[in-house]
């Protein structure tokens, strides 16, 4: 995993437009929801394991909740935050060799292409979530677990990622480099 710090030459010190701050705020807000889902996933599985081991009574629906509720929430809601921190996996071996100005333009333009693709994914994901809501989609387990509310995590998470990617592009074009690129800490992999 690489970051974009190579392109982080000192940019003009001027305040960023308000809409960029709003996008960043949205990403952080969704990350809080993701963190909440992470905690709930851990507690849910722990309760299941201890219930099974201590009382021979596993917590019913753990697999369904984990698969359909906690996992989509914790992953999709963190997409935009990860882009804000510039920690999505990128290969920058070629970009690192480009002149700074050219690199900014290239990252900006290809960021917009990525944004368009993500918006298409948002649109189709939203349609799917609406269809699921219309039929009240549940799992086929007994008792059934409602899935449809969490299917909206896909369009919401991908849309936020599209916004954050567009914000990153804007920062490249306008000479504001992604803030987080300056203090990225690396990743856990």
């Amino acid at each position, binding site marked *: 995993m690489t970051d974009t710090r190579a392109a982080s030459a000192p940019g003009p010190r001027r305040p960023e437009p308000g809409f960029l701050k709003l996008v960043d705020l949205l990403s952080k807000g969704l990350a809080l929801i993701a963190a909440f889902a992470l905690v709930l996933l851990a507690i849910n599985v722990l309760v299941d394991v201890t219930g099974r081991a201590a009382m021979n009574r596993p917590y019913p629906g753990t697999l369904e909740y984990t698969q359909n509720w906690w996992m989509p929430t914790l992953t999709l809601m963190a997409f935009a935050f990860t882009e804000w921190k510039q920690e999505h996996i990128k290969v920058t071996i070629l970009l690192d060799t*480009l002149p700074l100005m050219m690199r900014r333009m290239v990252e900006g333009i290809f960021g917009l292409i990525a944004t368009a693709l993500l918006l298409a994914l948002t649109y189709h994901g939203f349609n799917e979530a609406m269809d699921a809501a219309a039929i009240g989609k549940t799992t086929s387990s007994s008792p059934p677990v409602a899935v449809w509310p969490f299917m909206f995590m896909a369009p919401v998470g991908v849309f936020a990622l599209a916004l954050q990617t567009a914000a990153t592009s804007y920062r490249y074009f306008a000479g504001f480099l992604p803030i987080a690129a300056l203090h990225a800490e690396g990743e856990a*992999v």
Partner: protein
Amino acid sequence: MTDATLPSRVASRIGVTIFVIGLIVAAGSLYAMLFADLAKEVTGILIVVLSIVLLLMGIPVGVAMLGAAVVGLYSLSGARVVRSTMESVAFDATASWSLSVIPMFILMGMLLWKSGLTTSAFGAARVWLGWMPGGLAVATNFAGAALAASSGSTIGITYALGRVSIPEMLKAGYNPQLAVGSVAAAGTLGQIIPPSLLLVVYAGAASLPVGQQLLAGVIPGLLLAFAFAAMIVISAKLRPGLAPRVDMSGVTWSMRWQSLMDVVPIAIVVIIVIGGLFAGIFTATEAGVCGMFAALILGGIHQLRIGAGLGAIWRMVRDSVVGTLTGTASVFLLIVGVAVLTRAMALSQVPNFIATEVAELGLGRIELLFILIVAYLILGMFMDTLAMMLLTIPVLLAPLISVGVDPLWFGVFLVVMAEVGLLTPPLGILTFIVHRIASDPEANLGKPISLGTVFLGVLPFALTAIAVVVLLIFVPEIVTWLPGASTTR
């Protein structure tokens, strides 16, 4: 013009040239897929080419795969298939029970790292193994193996070890190449010995049981650690100047036993995760959750023992959660992309085409795997580890199975080769991290260590890893025996 600017200008010109060629290739691939009447297999190959070009342009790898695969799907099957794929892929790729082990393993590793528990591993290995030829490097290596068994984070292990062991080895008069090389090599064990994130991702992409895939990594990981140790000892024996003997006269048995007490927390986590998996007590996710809670409790106790307050514990948890969220999201964006890519590859029939060609060429299992060693060495030079794995799994798995390669075995082979890619120039990320650690004057004792020194230092370890891979090819039971013997759930 100074001498210093010349190479960067040349590199810049080469970069711009490659960039322009990439743009032309991307445009040509797009045009051909959208407007030309191509055979399905050719479309499949163009999808892979377009993926590689897009990811080299700096688009997140998952989105690059998604974009190329969507165009390919449209070319192969039309708009209806594209629509149905895009409607469900983001939710379906993330809604997975088996992959829920990923955030738990990351969180467990982060908690162990941020709590400072991992730093005791080198101290313990040092007092037990320091007497050997190249003892400090051997200690670094086995400390890496111990940390690998409690954390799936290559980078976490490298940081934890490098900051402690590099200055100690340099102080003892070790050759800088051996000092930095042993740290980087120890880091590679993180993704082979479970809990390994890469093995989980592979199991997900190849639709294999996660628990069995994780167990498949245990013996090859240990074998790799012993091979690295043997290489260090033999090198130190042949060239005593490489690693002068360390005076261990001050180390008493009570110090040795005390050092073991310091690594008890790590041992507990290892027993919970690997022992629980092997005995069939836990599924992989349950092992991850229990290991994570153990790391949380033990990390908290360790923080209190060293006199840190509740504020420090809160920061440990907060930083670990943030690292987990970004680590998990970055992996899952890739998984979304690879889900679409896998569908496109299946429709293009490229895997079947390769399987047929392999059969017609008369290539057997061993010949094909030797070709793959070379291919992965080349790919590892310019591609990210996960990207390299996930781009090739949909293409290669079916042909490999057709020549008798066990998919569990191939997962381990792939992860070891991916880890070798972390060491090789020009994109050997682990070498850059070790170089960053070794650039700190406190670590290098005021004697700068160049990137070239780091690359030369990791070379013997990379060759040793390849030798182990060759051994695995001829004795595949090294990988497949443990999963077969376990009662994993």
